[in-house]
Every structure is written in C-alpha cells, then in structure tokens.
C-alpha cells in the first residue's frame, strides 16, 4: 500500500509480542518505526527522533502512557503530534482519561491492520492541516507586523507634513484615533496671516492605505495656501482640482472647511458631504446646524466646482461641533442607526463642554454595543482677542538682498472681481522686505480690509449698516453674492510704493475703486459698536497702520507702514 508520505512513527508498548506486531503493521504501510518499552523511553525517543505520530500503550511500567502523552504534547508545542492510545481498557472512564491526557484517538486490542492504517491516515491529515494553519497564521502575523510598520512610517511622514497645524490651540478640543489617517479621517487647523483660524475635517472614501494617500496632498494645499492667506474659495478650488486629478473616479473626500474670523465676528463655512456642523451657544444649546450643501471634494471638474461659502455670525464663547460620519452611522443590533436625533439628545443633556466627547462616546458604546475608536470629533470655541496667536513666520530669510525702492500698480477689473483675490500675492511680495516681515499679519489684515471695502462698499455699493443684526448679516452676504454675480464694469486698483528711509523704510498703499465713495468724516466719527457685526474695518486699519487717510470722497484709501 503506497503511503501518502512516509512518517516516523513511535510505538510504545511494554508487551514484546504486541510491540513487534504493531511495528510490523506500521512498517508495511511504508512508515519508519521507532519502538519503546515504557513511557520514559518513549519521551526520550520523542526528543531524539521527533516522530510525527505516536502509538502509546496506556498501561506501562516506569512511566505510564498518560504521563508520557502529557510530556510529549508539551514537548511538541504548537505542532500537532497525534497520539493514538493503544488500550485493552474498556471502561468509559479510562478511555476518557486517554483523551484528557492529550490523546487524539484510541484503538482497542486486538489490533486490526486496516483500522490502524485508516487512523494513521486520518491523523496525518489533521497533522498537516494544523501545520498549514500555523504557517498561515505566522504569515498573517508577519504581514500584519509589516503593515503596522508601514503605517507607522507613513504616519510619521504625514505628521511632518501636518506639523504646522494648530490643533493644540486653547480653543480647540478634538478627538481622533491615532490611526484615523488610515480610516480616511483627516483633521487640520492653521492660522491665516490675518489671524483667522482655518479648520478642515475630511473623510476619504474607503479605508487603509488608499484612504490615506489623498491626505498628504490635501494637507499640503491646506497649510501652504492658508499660511499665504488665500481665501476659502481659492483653497477649496485648489484642493478639489488636485484631488480630482490624482484620485481614481470612485474615490473622493467629504470635507468641511471653516474660517473663524475674530475681526468679522463670524465663521465662514463650506460643507461638502460631511454630517451637519452644530453651532452651539455659550451654554451649549444648539443654535443652528450647518448642512452639507456641496458634493465632496475630488468629484467635480474644476469648471463645475462650487466653492461658495456661507457666513454665520459667531460671538466669543460660541462653539462649533464637527463630527465624522462614524457617529451617525453607529448601528445597533437591529441595524438601526444612531442618527441625528440621538446625537441631539446627547448635546441637549450636556452641561459641561469638557465632558461632551466622553458623553458622546459613552452613548455610542451603549447604543452600538461596543466602543468606537474610528470617529473624529472637533469642538471649536470662538476665541477672544487675548488668544490671538503669534503670527506665523512665512519665509525664513533667504539671505538674498531684497529690493528697497520700488512701486507697483495693479488693477482688478470686471469679471475678475468675481473670483480673484490679489491680497495673498501682494502680501507674499511684501514678505521680501525684512523690516515688514514681523508685521505680516497686520499687513494682511489691512490689505484684506481695504480690498474688501473697495469691492463691497465701493464697486458693489453694499451698505455695511445692513450687518447690524444676525438676519441682516445673512442678507448682506446673500446680496454680496448676488451683486458679485452681476458685476460687469468696475475696478479696484492698488498701488504699492516702497521707499528706503534713513533708519528703515516706508510702504505706501493706495486702494482706489470705481464706486460712489462715502462720507468720510461722518463714517470715521461713527462710534465703534461694542458687539455689532459691522463698523470695525476702518477703525482697525487706523490702529494697525502707521497712518491712514481717505481721499477723493472715500474712493481712495491711503495707508502707510513705516519701519
């Protein structure tokens, strides 16, 4: 009879006749046989010869089969060395003892050659199955180890890209699993040169490496453009175009992008495919929800992409709560979803903002029956003036000599007014002047203010008085969008002049517009409202610049910085 594979079989039997008979039967099946007369010999031979299968008499002198079985199993470790007990014992209890001592099967005397052969084959199948399982387990463990290592390296690289973030700011509380990146979740925060805070929460389709791949370019666009002061729409357009270009068709990134501006007392929001953002009052009530109004990033071609944002007044101490879809998607045993309603209950019951995340996680665990470690939460409080961050340094000194005496004129006309914002370019240019670098934030604020005044009050003829209350605030931005869409004629021109002076230099800025101008003395005399939503602009310009005047009936702003 051909054996599938010749095995080394250990036969331990104290009766010489039986031992001989068994050895003969097994040898005829094509296996190699080693024999022992008692349990102690069997264990010693097992160590020496490492047989793949053991036939063990239960009752033997010196050491019985039960003890020998225990020792052989312990020596074999994880590999399966089948032990077949040879026994004339008939009582149930003794047979049970054989199996409990580690035996895999037993065989009653007198021995049948056919049954023994079948049992050896069956045991060999089991042995090989166990070997395959162990090999696969080890392979999986190796792959898993490899994967974790790759993830650790990828995360370390990503953290370097994202290092500039300000998630640690005092007004942000967030929760994110350390491997959220590999769940496709992405959380970024940075200050603009003007001191606004930008926050992005994103969620790529899918899991694992594919989900993490898009995060890197997205973070680079976010940090790069935010630090240079590009406005929300430009950052969004760039992120969308980049993802559209690099991601496969079925991958995209749901995202919500926020810009918190102290100066405007407002937050600008764009939500594409993320769950509602909750606007919470100082005492934690839900004031409003900011819904997803757009397709996620990376789906639409650049020319179809809609980067329009919403403005919402936000006073100091009010908060915005951002969450990933894992919160709403948590399902219970009946596949019911946690949903908005249960989330609202948690928000309504919350008394201490510091406890909100814990309460939410607990509610999810109770509902879904297990803790979640794959969700992202971010709670942002509108900061107050004292928390205004130090301005980021945009460029290290390159050591090149920088021009000190130059001027530049720039005019944005007609349809270009709709989408183009020249401020970041000008700020970047002015970065070349060492004496101005420390004031980048102020420069950005002043130029932004002058440009938006010229555009909104000048070219578009909007009245800032509209922004006196929350409704008016919304109306103002709606009207702004409407008039901007229709703008035909009109211009804003900007002239920069840099001159050296004995101990430093001077930058003169002139911003002129095609609008009707305004009553300069009365607007400047108007008291600055404490908590109103308008009227901060001119006052701020006067405070930040060395000198500020309005000429030509309000159509031309003249501002100076000296150093």
């Amino acid at each position, binding site marked *: 009879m051909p054996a599938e594979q010749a095995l080394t079989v250990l036969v331990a039997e104290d009766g010489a006749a039986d031992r001989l008979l068994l050895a003969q039967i097994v040898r005829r099946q094509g296996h190699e046989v080693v024999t022992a007369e008692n349990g102690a010999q069997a264990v010693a031979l097992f160590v020496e010869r490492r047989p793949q299968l053991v036939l063990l008499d239960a009752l033997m002198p010196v050491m019985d089969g039960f003890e020998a079985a225990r020792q052989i199993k312990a020596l074999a470790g994880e590999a399966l060395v089948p032990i077949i007990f040879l026994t004339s014992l008939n009582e149930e209890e003794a047979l049970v003892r054989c199996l409990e001592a580690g035996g895999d099967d037993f065989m009653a005397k007198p021995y049948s050659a056919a049954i023994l052969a079948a049992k050896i084959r069956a045991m060999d199948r089991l042995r090989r199955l166990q070997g395959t399982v162990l090999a696969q387990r080890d392979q999986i463990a190796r792959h898993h180890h490899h994967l974790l290592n790759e993830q650790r390296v990828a995360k370390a690289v990503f953290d370097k890209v994202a290092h500039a973030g300000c998630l640690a700011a005092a007004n942000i509380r967030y929760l994110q699993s350390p491997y959220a990146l590999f769940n496709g979740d992405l959380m970024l925060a940075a200050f603009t040169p003007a001191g606004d805070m930008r926050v992005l929460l994103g969620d790529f389709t899918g899991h694992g490496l594919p989900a993490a791949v898009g995060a890197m370019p997205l973070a680079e666009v976010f940090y790069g453009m935010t630090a240079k002061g590009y406005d929300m729409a430009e950052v969004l357009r760039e992120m969308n175009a980049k993802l559209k270009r690099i991601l496969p*068709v*079925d991958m995209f990134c*749901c995202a919500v992008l926020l810009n918190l501006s102290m100066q405007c007392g407002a937050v600008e929001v764009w939500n594409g495919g*993320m769950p509602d953002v909750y606007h919470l009052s100082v005492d934690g009530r839900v004031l409003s929800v900011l819904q*997803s*109004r757009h397709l996620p990033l990376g789906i639409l071609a650049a020319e179809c992409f809609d980067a329009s944002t919403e403005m919402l007044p936000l006073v100091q101490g009010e908060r915005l709560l951002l969450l990933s879809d894992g919160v709403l998607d948590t399902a219970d045993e009946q596949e019911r979803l946690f949903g908005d309603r249960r989330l609202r209950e948690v928000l309504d019951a919350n008394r201490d903002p510091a406890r909100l995340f814990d309460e939410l996680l607990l509610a999810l665990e109770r509902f879904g029956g297990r803790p979640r470690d794959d969700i992202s939460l971010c709670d942002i409080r509108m900061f107050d003036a004292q928390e205004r961050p130090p301005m980021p340094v945009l460029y290290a000194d390159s050591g090149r000599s920088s021009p000190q005496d130059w001027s530049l004129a720039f005019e944005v006309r007609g349809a270009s007014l709709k989408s183009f914002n020249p401020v970041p370019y000008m700020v970047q240019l002015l970065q070349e002047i060492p004496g101005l670098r420390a004031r980048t934030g102020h420069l950005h604020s002043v130029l932004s203010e002058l440009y938006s005044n010229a555009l909104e009050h000048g070219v578009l003829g909007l009245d800032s008085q509209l922004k006196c209350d929350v409704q008016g605030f919304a109306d103002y931005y709606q009207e702004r969008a409407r008039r901007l869409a229709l703008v035909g004629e009109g211009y804003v021109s900007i002239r920069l002049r840099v001159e050296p002076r004995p101990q430093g230099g001077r930058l003169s800025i002139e911003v002129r517009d095609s609008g009707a101008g305004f009553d300069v003395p009365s607007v400047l005399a108007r008291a600055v409202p404490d908590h109103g939503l308008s009227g901060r602009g001119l006052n701020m310009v006067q405070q930040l610049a060395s000198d500020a005047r309005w000429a030509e009936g309000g159509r031309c702003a003249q501002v100076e910085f000296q150093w």
Partner: protein
Amino acid sequence: MAVETDLTQDGKTLTIKIKGRFDFSKHQEFRDAYERQPGRQDCVVVDLKDTTYLDSSALGMLLLLRDHAGETVEVQVVNPSSDVRKILAISNFEKLFNIS
C-alpha cells in the same frame, strides 16, 4: 443574486437592482452588471428599492457607473428608502444623478 439586472426588450434601458447592503462587497457584481451588457443603452436605472444601507464606497461605485456611462447615457437612481436618501442627500449626489 444580490445584484440583479434587467435589460428592456429594445436594449435601451438597463435596470440594476441592489438588494440588502450596498457596500464594497458588491463592488465586482455591480461593475459586472453594467460592463457586461451588449451594446450601448440610453439610460441606466439603479433601483434601490430593496437596498437597506449604502456607504461611501457605494457612492464611489455610482461615480464609476457615471464615468462608464459618459455624457450621453442618463443615470437614474430610483426608490431609495428614507435612510438611503439621506446618505445621498448629505453627499449632495442629487447634483450628479437624477434621484427619484
């Protein structure tokens, strides 16, 4: 079959029906459903009547279908349950697909 297809007699309209959860496990079946059809259709209808849940990878699969269909073929998504409709609405997919 969790993904069923039905082609009208004139071969102009292809209906793809998804039963149960519409997630990544249906990826291959869903692709086969439209890639293995002979000729070109005028309209592809994705019927979600028996779809209990839809995740973001299903949204990705709809984008693949839209890409495959191109400009000339209309893609309709019909009969979503209220839960499924909500997921489509959060992602604003009604801007891409005719959803009814």
